[in-house]
């Protein structure tokens, strides 16, 4: 028996502690139980609800949603993949800085992105004013499908960029060298060798992007484009047609599940082959030569449109005093509430996924794998479906639970705990099992070995997972709108309320504050974490 194989079978035959099993099972049940309420409600809908949601309407909503998801996906791939290739594989001047600029839009919530783009490109907006002296009187209206596509591309291309960049770094350069040796040029190598080997990463990124579009509420609402998510919201909030909302939410969940299945198929068929194990060589950088200028232009255009312009709009609004109300400020109380609730969600999520992570890592078996997969499942669920499911659960449980802070927190934790689990699990997997054995043979008991060796080594992964939960929670809108207790406004809902009455410039300072709180966490979204995010399904 070689030592590698022996190490892999080391934990076999040991029974997991029942306390961990019970804890992990409870968390896994919590991850899927709300869905049962949703399904129950949708399937027992009355005739009135069915009349509100005829098949034709549902189909139309599904088609519109799919059309938007497809458009955003194409745009995000067209922007993200070449950008990643330029940053990772060429001698583009300022590569690191361009790379950071491409991942920064992750901290901008989609509704803030939409708001800023609307402001920039609207009549008498920033861009038109800048172009005015050149004789440009009017820009094409930015709303509906194209507006939503643009705003959501801004929000999603960083995922494509991060995953593609990470994969490009790890692709074995020897296959590319072989292709070169067989007579392919730079373009040929990229098209025939590099791009196909990116397929698993791109499948993961495509899943993230389409799920993002499916669950987005803010950007599509602002752009006035109706999708399944906005339809669910309108039925719940304005029409008070709960059963009808439940039916549409269930369709939304089904759509998400289909996407996950398709993506896992795509990913299974592709694999990153790396012949040489270990650290491996980095590929030689492609010399851009004169192509440097168009490449820089491309990066500048992307960064300008998706980072500089939105920020410039928000800053200029913040500095502008409204003639009637005066200069608006940051909603400080809401900012404090947002930070507190996101911090709490991050802490709880990081803690409750520990049993599942430890079980799947240390005691691999069909049962523990199942528990892990079930706990990861909510990462595919659109937030509004989770929120609606918890509304039904809460209304059954009574008024103590319904519209309580606890229910809102539970929704955040359920929806985002997969990020914490994936990150924790990946950091545990990276720990050499021999380390724990070494600690044992040096006199540490099992718990002592975990405390002195495993936890310190897994700490960065656990923290990164918590940071992801924090970031996602603070940007979250539809769940918060549905479940917040009366009078409990977060930064996101404050901004949303402002936009609803057209007071764009008044909420700009709060939007900037939201970005400022989230921004420090972008460094925790390192390349590795982006991978884990992609592996979360």
């Amino acid at each position, binding site marked *: *028996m*070689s*030592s590698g194989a*022996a190490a892999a*079978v*080391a934990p*076999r*035959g040991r029974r997991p502690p029942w306390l961990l099993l019970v804890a992990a099972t409870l968390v896994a049940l919590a991850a899927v139980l709300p869905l049962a309420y949703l399904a129950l409600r949708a399937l027992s809908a009355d005739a009135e609800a069915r009349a509100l949601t005829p098949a034709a309407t549902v189909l139309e909503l599904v088609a519109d949603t799919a059309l938007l998801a497809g458009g955003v996906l194409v745009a995000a791939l067209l922007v993200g993949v070449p950008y990643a290739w330029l940053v990772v594989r060429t001698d583009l001047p300022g590569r690191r800085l361009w790379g950071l600029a491409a991942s920064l839009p992750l901290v901008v919530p989609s509704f803030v992105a939409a708001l800023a783009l609307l402001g920039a490109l609207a009549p008498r907006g920033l861009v038109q004013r800048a172009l005015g002296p050149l004789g440009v009187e009017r820009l094409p209206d930015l709303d509906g499908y194209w507006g939503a596509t643009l705003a959501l591309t801004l929000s999603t291309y960083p995922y494509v960029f991060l995953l593609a960049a990470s994969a490009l770094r790890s692709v074995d350069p020897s296959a590319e060298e072989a292709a070169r040796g067989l007579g392919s040029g730079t373009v040929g190598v990229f098209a025939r060798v590099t791009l196909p080997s990116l397929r698993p990463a791109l499948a993961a990124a495509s899943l993230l992007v389409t799920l993002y579009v499916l669950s987005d509420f803010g950007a599509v609402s602002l752009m006035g484009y109706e999708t399944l998510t906005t339809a669910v919201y309108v039925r719940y909030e304005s029409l008070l047609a709960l059963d009808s909302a439940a039916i549409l939410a269930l369709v939304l969940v089904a759509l998400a599940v289909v996407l996950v299945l398709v993506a896992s198929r795509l990913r299974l068929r592709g694999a990153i082959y790396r012949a040489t194990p270990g650290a491996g060589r980095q590929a030689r950088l492609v010399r851009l030569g004169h192509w440097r200028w168009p490449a820089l232009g491309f990066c500048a255009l992307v960064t300008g449109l998706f980072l500089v312009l939105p920020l410039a709009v928000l800053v200029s609004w913040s500095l502008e005093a409204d003639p009637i109300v005066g200069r608006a400020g940051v909603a400080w109380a809401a900012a404090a509430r947002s930070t507190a609730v996101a911090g709490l969600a991050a802490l709880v999520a990081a803690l409750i996924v520990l049993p599942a992570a430890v079980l799947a890592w240390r005691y691999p078996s069909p049962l523990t794998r199942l528990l892990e997969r079930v706990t990861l499942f909510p990462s595919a669920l659109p937030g509004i479906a989770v929120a609606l499911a918890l509304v039904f659960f809460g209304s059954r449980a009574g008024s103590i639970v319904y519209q309580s802070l606890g229910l809102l927190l539970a929704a955040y934790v359920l929806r985002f705990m997969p990020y914490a689990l994936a990150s924790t699990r990946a950091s545990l997997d990276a720990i*050499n099992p*021999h*380390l724990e*054995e*070494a*600690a*044992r*043979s*040096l*006199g*540490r*008991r*099992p718990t*002592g070995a975990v405390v*002195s*060796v495993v936890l*310190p*080594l897994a700490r960065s992964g656990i923290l990164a997972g918590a940071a992801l939960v924090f970031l996602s929670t603070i940007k979250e809108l539809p769940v918060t709108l549905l479940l917040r207790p009366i009078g409990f406004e977060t930064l996101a809902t404050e901004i949303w309320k402002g936009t609803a009455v057209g007071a764009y410039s008044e909420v700009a300072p709060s939007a900037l504050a939201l970005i400022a709180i989230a921004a420090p966490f972008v460094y925790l979204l390192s390349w590795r974490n982006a991978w884990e995010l992609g592996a979360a399904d």
Partner: protein
Amino acid sequence: MIRLERVTKRFGDVTAVDEASLGVARGEVLALLGPSGCGKTTLLRLVAGFEQPDAGAIEIAGELVSGRDTWVPPERRRVGMVFQDYALFPHLTVRENVGFGLARRERRARVAELLAIVGLEELGSRYPHELSGGQQQRVALARALAPSPELVLLDEPWSNVDSSMRETLRAEVADIIRPLGVTVVLVTHDREEAFSLADRIALMRDGAIVQEGTSEELYFAPASRWAAEFVGAANVLTGPVEHGLVRTPIGAFPVDRDGDRAEVEVLVRPELLELEPDPSGAGEVVAREFRGHDVFYRVRLGGVEVVSQRPSNEVVPLGSRVRVKLHNGRTAVLR
């Protein structure tokens, strides 16, 4: 010092260790030698306490650590382990790694003592990734030795090392271990490693220990044809035994076995076959392979082919006729 009695370990349908029995004396260096997948690492892990045997008993320093109703966990076995990948704690410095298994009050003095033994006094505050492979190995050894274990286990310690560096590192480790007089069990698939380091070798195949003995015993008197070929290049010839002489296609020579028998297999190591150029010789050199310090010749003779290993200063051209002489040495009857 340690005693294994009919130890068996199964993984599902695979029997990794099959009724292995073994004894190691205090201060002895024993090598567990065998091809990859033969169960030698599993046997080592059973001794360390990382695996529980399905049957059999293990004793360390007179104490039963694993038996029918007994199980002593690894932390109470006083066994130091040096892993194949060293398994240094990446978040701790060299000093903290070496001191990991020590009580607080003795830590400082003992760590200093061990760093001196392995010659790493200057590098105590480095982290493992800042060390060369050889230095990492010495840290791993120091860490295993620090709590003064009854026994030190080395798992394939040089398999990750370039062959050019292996000999140096092997000598380094031998120089550290030998003066301390600790008991060592070393797992390896490299016969040279086993020969050069071990007092005694236990040869393993398919989970069972097939032979135990000194390097010379294993090399010149292997118990089976498989053992003969595993521990070195071998000519295996067949022929009848009459009056203490075995008649083989390359000639008759004495064997250490009484009684006439119809047919036996004898082992003749290639370095025992001398070649004398002779135009009327019965042998013909059909292949020649230069290996540096010596040359391997394939000689066709009496309907068989034998291999002869000669120092490279003796030159016998390809195709020349030779007489084959058996050098004074040991030949062994295999069957």
